[in-house]
């Protein structure tokens, strides 16, 4: 029996830490520029919270991009739908939301978030079957179909709820800040960070510790070979699409509470950010998406504080810079 190339030296897989260190380096570089340590801490906490919310919304899109090769320009619809569904729960229980009891607040917030995820996920099922299924593999048609779907969704929300902005006040126990010396960190931002981290850890556990995760990772890389091994990847597509839609719904609730308002075109401001995150993270990479979301939020917060006029283009500049460094994103996964 021949030792088939067993003697060949195997290059040790390199741990690519540069993208992980990037937000750390950026945050540290901002200390002298911002000047005040307390302002820097506040901005950093705001960046992390905003980054986590963007990550939650973008994580589904990056998997849909990577696994299904689908350009879903209508992802923002799930965000808006999630937020509106939450208002349906918040409105009749306004007294409980404003009660000065954490448990009472959570008793409304948790079902609202779960219902939003369920409705957005169900809407994802309909969108995948009706809009995406006929145009798999046809990018131009995907863009047209999903953009059309987004317009229909927005107009439907206008028709059902009216054009006015709906207030969505934070629950009473999530108002205010934690005070650490002369640093104030908003309670809601801490909650957003915790939820974002929990979502990230949950996705990583599923992707790295379960067979379902193996299939998703393999499918992102080579769908055809996964099918040739006997797996029906279309079902996996549908499951990932629904999960991504549900996460967008959760992100919509969190963003609405962050802004304390809901309106049908709320996803417009987020869609560009989400696409920037997905692209700079590397299509299909959850880790890249996580780091990309933090970077985008940092650039928005630090940039907005230091050079307010630059805030409008800061994320595009970030994307250009990252893609010049790594043309396929921070962590390239797919061969596409």
């Amino acid at each position: 029996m021949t030792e088939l190339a067993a003697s060949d030296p195997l290059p040790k897989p390199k741990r690519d830490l540069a993208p992980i260190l990037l937000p750390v380096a950026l945050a540290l570089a901002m200390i002298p520029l911002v000047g005040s340590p307390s302002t820097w801490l506040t901005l950093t906490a705001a960046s992390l919270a905003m980054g986590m919310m963007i990550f939650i919304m973008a994580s589904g899109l990056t998997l849909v991009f990577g696994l299904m090769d689908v350009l879903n320009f209508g992802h923002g619809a799930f965000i808006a739908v999630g937020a509106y569904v939450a208002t349906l729960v918040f409105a009749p229980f306004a007294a409980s939301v404003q009660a000065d009891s954490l448990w009472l607040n959570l008793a409304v917030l948790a079902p609202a978030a779960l219902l939003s995820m369920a409705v957005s996920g169900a809407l994802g099922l309909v969108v995948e079957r009706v809009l995406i299924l006929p145009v798999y593999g046809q990018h131009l048609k995907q863009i047209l179909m999903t953009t059309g779907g987004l317009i229909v969704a927005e107009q439907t929300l206008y028709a059902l709820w009216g054009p006015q902005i709906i207030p969505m006040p934070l629950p009473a126990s999530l108002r205010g800040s934690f005070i650490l010396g002369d640093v104030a960190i908003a309670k809601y931002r801490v909650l957003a960070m915790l939820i974002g981290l929990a979502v990230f850890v949950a996705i990583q556990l599923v992707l790295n510790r379960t067979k379902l995760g193996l299939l998703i990772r393999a499918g992102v890389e080579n769908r055809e070979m996964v099918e040739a091994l006997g797996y029906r990847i279309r079902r996996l597509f549908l499951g990932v699409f629904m999960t991504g839609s549900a996460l967008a719904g959760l992100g919509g609730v969190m963003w609405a509470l962050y802004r304390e308002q809901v309106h049908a075109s709320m996803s417009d401001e987020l869609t560009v950010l989400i696409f920037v995150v997905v692209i700079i993270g590397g299509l299909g990479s959850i880790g890249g998406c996580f780091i990309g979301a933090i970077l985008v939020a940092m650039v928005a917060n630090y940039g907005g504080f230091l050079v307010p006029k630059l805030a409008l283009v800061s994320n595009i500049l970030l994307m250009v810079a990252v893609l010049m460094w790594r043309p396929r994103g921070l962590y390239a996964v797919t061969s596409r």
Partner: protein
Amino acid sequence: MTDLLKLSGVHTHIGRYHILQGIDLAVPQGQVTMLLGRNGAGKTTTLRTIMGLWQASSGEITLGGTRIESLATPDIARLGVGYVPESMAVFSDLTVKENLVLAARDAAMDDRQLEWIFGFFPALRRFWLSRAGSLSGGQKQMLSIARAIIEPRKLLLIDEPTKGLAPAIVMALIECLKEIKRKGATILLVEQNFFAARELGDSVLVMDNGTIVHRGEMAALAADVPLQERLLGLSLEAHQ
């Protein structure tokens, strides 16, 4: 000897190109059938059509008497067809172990089968927990073949396993495929390396322009230099 796989009048179109133009072939049970031909003759398309990765436009494909031409790729795979593509297509982000776990599908990996595979491919044991993307080309090919045989398959479709590999690795792969053959596997093997073809093949099919232009015993083709030159443009010796 009964035929495990039969193609009758199979046509395949890819876009506006008519690639397979009425393929008729049979792969006998327990034999290695070589599929030879010049580049662009339609060999890879034949394997992909059998696997359902490209849909046959017309014609019949039967596996053990079951019509499969309209089945989806996963259903064909679950009927017991293993596929080793030309590109190897290992999942580079997954470890060697994870690649094989996926290939074992619903079953746990059979330890005896795994040991048998390690006997041929000791590198896979050594790099069990390494990312497949960090393996060398030869090691990736080993993994790709291991993935196809980790579970018993009725039929193996293997596309140019020796392509681009160093001679020492080619020899080792030939030994491995011989052993798989001795265990009774049925293989349809596309190969450009005629030395490998001669070593492994029981029967041979030669393709040209999307049709089968010759069928017969591999030994007979190997012995007939003028026929080789007529069918393939070069003799076997010229390819060794």
